[in-house]
């Protein structure tokens, strides 16, 4: 695909066997990924998980240690950044401060010697409704406006693939919501392939057709947002996307349709189609909003799991919903989200309650949650490398 042509529509992206090692640590272990043309794809993960590195590899700003990158079927691993039909919207926008807005937007077109660069640049600015500020300098614009200029500067080149590196991070909440919708509509209108990197799971789920959750340099799970959310495969995904109640125990019986796990002082039933493992010690879970709070013992419910009685140890009101934390003997703290259909919380701290959820809403994970202290572990690839190195050093010193 020649850089000189505008892409008619977006192209496929394929990453095959990508590994990226920096001196001292490995940012990406083994990455295999296919993004279909014309889709909005989100790469989601905590800081240091390797998502920005992946983006830079696709943009050509870094070279992979091993592996190949294919855009539209063509191997671009060895082409330089300025020869790839890929454009990036940078996290800091990176608008050239010494050029006006229109010069910024026209920059790529001029480098490719596209005719009527300024005309096309104005068109792109009209798309983001900023044409009236074309002669201003970037510093004279607000954060939201700068972000739109950065978008226009990338889109005007009609790249086969548009990369967005946490572009909404610096905006306040309302503006961010607005921009999420705008980005999505522009992508659908222009038909480009978008690769969006973010640590904000709500953002990823709102905007993307497909989400890939990355952790410690590898993709843990990939799929449509609802799929990932309703059926997480690993404890990391279960805890990173939204919240989960997790229970670990032994599988005591299996049928063709469900497994029964001995956890939280009782039996928890999970459909086999929603459980990754069917024997031994497994971890099962359910989302807090799927759990119902009962102020009186509800009795036997055939298709529901029931835990309790327990005591409420915390009530948090947050406008739309109220979060209850219930201490179930043998099950730990169970989180319940209840929508505030009435006024005020349904129960108070110390009240005796039961919790239940539909069996079909539970899920079984492929692994177990790790030991968590009071604060989340530092999981960035750099700190992992530093810890390993220090462990090695202390080991060597012992001899």
């Amino acid at each position, binding site marked *: 695909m020649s850089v000189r042509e505008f892409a008619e529509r977006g192209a496929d992206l394929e990453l095959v066997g990508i590994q990226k090692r920096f001196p001292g640590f490995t940012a990406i272990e083994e990455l295999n990924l296919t993004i279909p043309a014309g889709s909005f794809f989100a790469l989601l993960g905590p800081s240091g998980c390797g998502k920005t590195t992946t983006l830079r590899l696709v943009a050509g700003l870094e070279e992979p240690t091993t592996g190949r990158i294919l855009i539209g079927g063509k191997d671009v691993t060895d082409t*330089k*950044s300025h*020869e790839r039909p890929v454009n*990036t919207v940078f996290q800091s926008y*990176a608008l*050239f*401060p*010494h050029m006006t807005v229109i010069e910024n937007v026209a*920059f790529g077109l001029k480098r490719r010697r596209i005719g009527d660069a300024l005309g096309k640049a104005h068109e792109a600015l009209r798309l983001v409704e900023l044409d009236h500020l074309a002669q201003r300098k970037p510093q004279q614009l607000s954060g939201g406006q700068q972000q739109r200029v950065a978008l226009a500067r990338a889109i005007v080149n009609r790249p086969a693939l548009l990369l967005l590196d946490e572009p909404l991070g610096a905006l306040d909440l309302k503006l961010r919501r607005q921009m999420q919708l705008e980005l999505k509509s522009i992508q659908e209108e222009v038909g480009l392939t978008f690769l969006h990197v973010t640590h904000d799971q709500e953002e990823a789920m709102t905007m993307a057709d497909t989400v890939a959750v990355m952790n410690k340099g590898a993709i843990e799970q990939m799929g449509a947002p609802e799929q990932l959310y309703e059926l997480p495969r690993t404890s990391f995904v279960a805890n990173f996307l939204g919240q989960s109640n997790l229970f670990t125990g032994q599988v005591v019986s299996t049928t063709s349709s469900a497994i029964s796990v001995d956890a939280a002082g009782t039996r928890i039933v999970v459909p086999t189609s929603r459980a990754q493992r069917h024997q031994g010690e497994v971890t099962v879970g359910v989302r807090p909003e799927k759990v119902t709070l009962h102020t009186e013992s509800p009795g036997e419910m055939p298709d529901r799991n029931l835990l309790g009685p327990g005591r409420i140890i915390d009530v948090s009101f947050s406008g739309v919903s109220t979060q209850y934390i219930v201490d179930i003997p043998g099950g730990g703290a169970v989180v319940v989200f209840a929508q505030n259909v009435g006024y005020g919380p349904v129960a108070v701290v110390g009240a005796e309650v039961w919790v239940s959820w539909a069996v079909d809403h539970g899920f079984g994970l492929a692994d177990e949650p790790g030991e968590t202290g009071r604060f989340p572990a530092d999981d960035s690839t750099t700190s992992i490398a530093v810890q390993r190195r220090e462990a090695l050093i202390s080991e060597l010193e012992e001899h």
Partner: protein
Amino acid sequence: MSGEVQAAAVLGGFTESETQEDNAPGGIPRRRRIGLGDWLLPVYTVLAFVFLLIPIVYTFVFSFNDSIKSNISWRGFTFDKWLNVCNVEGGAVCQAFTNSIIIGLVATVIATVLGTMIAIALVRYRFRARSAISLLLFLPMATPEVVLGAGLAAQFLAVGVPKDMTTIILAHTMFCISFVVVTVKARVSSLDPALEEAGRDLYGSPSQVFWRVTFPLLTPGILAAALLSFALSFDDFIITNFNSGSVSTFPKYIYISASRGIPAEANVIASAVFLFALVLVVAAQVSRAARAKRLAKLG
């Protein structure tokens, strides 16, 4: 270093365009109720400035002195010296001044070009012998001028090169390079690498990215380095003294005349240079502040 060494730090700030953030990086001291202790520092500062400026005022005032030979005692106020600057001593003062300007310009151009190239290489590229080169750049700044001057003079002597304008220019360029490197390097280091990445991302070849993105953003730093270099060269005495032979520069002229009496015309030139530089710098600062204010309003 008989010149404006850290003017680099300050000039770097002066010539920066409004692209740099002007806000204090570390928080602004909060307002408290004004107590006695709060007056101490401002008063001290004012007194300190008065102290710093006394010789300047003295020099300026005495440029109006109706002196004959030596300019030591006040004889009367006159504009004569300002109007007929080059008349005294067969125009020696003006000749010295002109020499200083020429030397300054040539040395500045060479030092700025060479120094900028080194600064870019140091920040952006990996190469062996980095520490050796860093040391080589650091040493001229750490070496007393006497040593620099004497060494170069000994060298010229050994090779048999006569001392004239050329040797002065060569000497000045030498000690200016390090300062240029330091100033430009600071500027290169403060460039957001994302800007150049954006340039590459937007189909700019390496040379296009350099000339259209990097270089324009470096201009304030290069300008500051050039100004610093010129200032250092213009005011240099010690190294010049060793390497000039019979050529006169402005500082050298002053030194030589010190024993028999410096004519008021020297004061005139010095005061003129001072006022020119002062106006330039203050204007730059005020215009920068005005631009920053305008930008803040628009956003």
